């Protein structure tokens, strides 16, 4: 069935694609180790965040928090804003996004095209100022609704109810699930579902490690762990630097023809690590990982061409995942 009553109904149900060329080769007679890519760029606005946005808006509607004509406020550095803008347009809400100046030009154009209003805050280095901007806006508009994806249970539930069941249906032999750790919603929701259904499943997080600018907090106590995060859902958690993320992003399109954003490269790096461990240990593995979005929005960074050192420099100080 490939016919839907509206764009919102076409959210999810993304293909799971085998990667025969990127999967490690195993010695003769050893059990197979296979990589599978869940193509979340095939969602209505081109990223996994469509699932999150749709579930958060529906939950707010059901709870009476959102009524027609209301304004949604979202601090976002990208995909969630684009997804919310599409959902807001189709459900009759106004969306105001607060975002740092140092996001890519494509993201800003996309948001405006989908009808969102944007308020810029100073680049990530001055996070104190960004917080001040966000606080001020919230204070001036107490009636605006903030869905707060970092603490919204509907974000994780979207993946518990859709991403998880889709993976199990398409890959009943799944042994590892690998995804990016941002709001933690994908890993918490999908991870909980798979842990209930698949014995000894490994839930693996790949976390982007940015340049130093991004970590420029004044004090350890100003750190933040999303309310959704529950470490007991995870089996392992990898930190992936810019260079490895770029290398794997390029490898994915060169070897398997999948053109993805850099967060996907970070996830693939962790997926390859667990796949190679399985080969070393002589264990069977079906490793499914998330392709969060396509590479289109990141072309202007210039990080798809040139040397890895050039790419690393181009992404320095940027929130590339």
């Amino acid at each position, binding site marked *: 069935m490939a016919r839907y009553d509206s764009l919102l109904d076409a959210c999810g149900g993304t293909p799971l694609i085998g990667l025969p060329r990127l999967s490690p080769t195993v010695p003769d007679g050893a059990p197979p180790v296979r990589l599978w890519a869940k193509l979340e760029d095939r969602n209505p606005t081109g990223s996994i965040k469509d699932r999150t946005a749709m579930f958060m808006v529906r939950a707010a509607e059901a709870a009476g928090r959102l009524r027609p004509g209301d304004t949604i*406020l979202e*601090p*976002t*550095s990208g995909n969630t804003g684009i997804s919310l803008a599409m959902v807001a347009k189709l459900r009759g809400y106004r969306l105001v996004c*607060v*975002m*740092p100046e140092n996001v890519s030009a494509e993201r800003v154009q996309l948001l405006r095209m989908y009808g969102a209003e944007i308020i810029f*805050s100073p680049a*990530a280095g001055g*996070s104190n100022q*960004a*917080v001040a*901007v*966000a*606080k001020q*806006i*919230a*204070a001036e508009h*107490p009636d605006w609704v*903030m869905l*707060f*994806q*970092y*603490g919204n249970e509907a974000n994780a539930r979207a993946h518990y109810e859709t991403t998880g069941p889709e993976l199990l249906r398409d890959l009943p032999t799944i042994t590892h699930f690998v995804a990016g*750790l*941002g*709001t933690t919603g994908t890993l918490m929701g999908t991870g909980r579902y798979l842990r209930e259904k698949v014995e000894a499943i490994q839930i693996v*997080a790949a*976390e*982007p*490690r*940015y340049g*130093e600018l*991004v*970590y*420029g*907090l*004044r*004090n*350890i*106590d*100003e*750190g*933040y*762990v*999303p309310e959704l995060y529950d*470490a007991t859902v*995870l*089996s*392992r*958690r*990898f*930190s*992936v*630097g810019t260079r490895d993320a770029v290398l794997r992003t390029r490898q994915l399109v060169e070897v398997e023809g999948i053109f993805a954003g850099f967060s996907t490269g970070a996830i693939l790096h962790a997926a390859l690590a667990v796949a190679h461990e399985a080969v070393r240990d002589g264990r069977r593995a079906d490793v499914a990982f998330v392709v969060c979005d396509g590479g289109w929005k990141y072309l202007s960074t210039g990080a798809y061409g040139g040397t890895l050192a050039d790419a690393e420099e181009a992404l320095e100080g940027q*929130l590339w*995942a």
Partner: protein
Amino acid sequence: MAIEVRIPTILRSYTGGAKVVEGSGETLADLLTDLDSRHGGLKGRLVTETGALHRFVNVYVNDEDVRFLGALDAKLSDGDSITILPAVAGGAFGFAAAAAIASHAASVAVAGSAGR
């Protein structure tokens, strides 16, 4: 035995500005004690009074989160590379701004309900 440790910007006041320092130890706890002997005060910023890793500190051994490898009891080997980072993954902006607005909204909601 030498283990390389990457220090985040906000903790370099303890290492005389050094980005990378070396230490030794059988476990992460041993390593932090060893580092503290030369960089006094560093351990106190990473480990709480109750002896656990600080909630907003992430420590990685060869790029893997040490909390999944035994935390402070994680075994270390010669040549391991340790990275210490503050917990802001996903972008300092998104997290900080979202948390600020949420706490503000909560305080407004409390004030509002108290006034009724």
